[in-house]
């Protein structure tokens, strides 16, 4: 059976079970809304554009934050890979920071930047930076020694060696870094937005919760998941596979 059929059957079954639970009426509609009412809420949100504006606002926060985190992460990664002392000091700190969930930064961001977009973007930047740093660092440190030897016998040294050999050789790790940074930032974005004053998907989610609008809560969770997996599978996994293949590192994807 093709994968796509399996998936469709799986989701259809899931929705049927959901509908059955709804029809059993054990819980009030405000706790378990019907699939149809969730679908209607999503449709209405797109029809009156409110959800569209939320999605656009979220993407704007993400784009600004992720871009900044990729730039900072790349530079930090290069620093850690190239300067031993930095790796031994700053490196340990970044490793520790990487294990701090990004929602932890939200209270701090609110004190520093108030309930503003700057707060959200700050949390997104923190979310993506460290994972990018660590991947960039590994990428540069793990360049196959044979490439360096070969390049040296061909007269490439210093900056030329770094730009023409080390950087391109580390691209597979960098791409993995970008993919993970996106995933971490996307989670951080939702955490940041839930405590903001809008607009944004996260804001509307917590707003819907405040007004007991369960259909909208579930609808937005679905939208967040769908966007997350679409971006990951349609963009990042494809790019990653292509690069791994080209770089001769493909593991029979």
């Amino acid at each position: 059976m093709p994968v796509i059929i399996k998936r469709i059957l799986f989701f259809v079954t899931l929705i049927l079970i959901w509908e059955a639970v709804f029809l059993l009426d054990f819980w009030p509609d405000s706790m378990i809304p019907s699939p149809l009412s969730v679908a209607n809420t999503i449709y209405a949100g797109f029809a009156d554009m409110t959800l569209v504006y939320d999605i656009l606002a979220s993407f704007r926060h993400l784009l600004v934050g992720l871009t900044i985190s990729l730039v900072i992460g790349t530079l930090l990664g290069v620093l850690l890979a190239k300067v031993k002392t930095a790796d031994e000091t700053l490196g340990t700190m970044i490793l520790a920071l990487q294990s701090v969930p990004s929602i932890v930064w939200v209270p701090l961001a609110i004190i520093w930047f108030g309930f503003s977009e700057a707060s959200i973007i700050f949390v997104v930047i923190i979310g993506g930076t460290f994972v990018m740093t660590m991947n960039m660092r590994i990428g540069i440190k793990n360049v196959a020694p044979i490439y360096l030897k070969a390049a040296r016998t061909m007269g490439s040294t210093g900056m030329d060696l770094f730009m023409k050999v080390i950087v391109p050789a580390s691209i597979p790790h960098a791409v993995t870094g970008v993919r993970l940074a996106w995933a971490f930032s996307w989670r951080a974005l939702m955490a940041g937005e839930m405590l903001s004053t809008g607009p944004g998907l996260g804001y509307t989610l917590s707003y819907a919760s405040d007004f007991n609008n369960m259909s909208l809560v579930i609808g937005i969770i679905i939208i967040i998941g769908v966007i997350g997996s679409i971006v990951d599978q349609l963009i990042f996994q494809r790019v990653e596979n292509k690069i791994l293949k080209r770089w001769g590192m493909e593991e029979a994807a």
Partner: protein
Amino acid sequence: MYLNINNVSKSFQRRGEQPLRALENINLSIKEGEFVSLLGPSGCGKSTLLSMIAGLAKPSSGNVKLASQEITEPGPDKSMVFQEPALFPWMSVKENVTFPLRKNMNKRDREGAAWEYLKMVHLSQFADNYPHELSGGMQQRVAIARALAMNSKLLLMDEPFGALDEQTRLVLQEEVEKIWLNTEKTIVFVTHSIREAIKLSDRIMIMSARPGAIISDFKVNLSRPRQQKDMALLEEEVMAMLKTEIDNVMKEELQYAGNH
């Protein structure tokens, strides 16, 4: 002499053990245009010796001189082919071959040179392919073309066909011999295949292991291209010389394993 290796020794420090004496008092002179093989069991330091000629490693004592200049670092006067093709996967075949030419040639001359050298290894139609699209043997040919593109007089080859199947190996040996005959390069060739060394070399340096040393400077005076029947006798002769060496290495290995 063109390439002189004078009293070269190399040892590696090992934690908590005696330093490993990889090479001891190596003396070797090579004439311009000679094809010289370094032949010996694994661990005899032949690759280490080659990387010192390439300038990738430094002798612990002694020196290596190329045209009277001491070799201290890699340079355009010597090119190297490794056991792995070591092609850059993010570059097309053509870009790989022109990599060493970037600084001193304009684009058009580079492309011309790439085409010329790729033709020499029969791969000109693959100029725009990427390394992962080629077989192992084809990749190694590109690596040879890339080394040739440097147009250095000295070509160093470190078990270049070690990872290839027998068929491909034979074809590439013939190609290298042809290239050598046509370009009058000096080639230093590391191998552990007796047959390969006899097929290609003017001289074979037979090496012993631990510490690595040259035990025989073996001249091959057969006309080229060499025929299997003429080579057979020499093969036995070299084999006899190496056998004692290989036995010694095995014995030492067993003793070491027994003591640890």
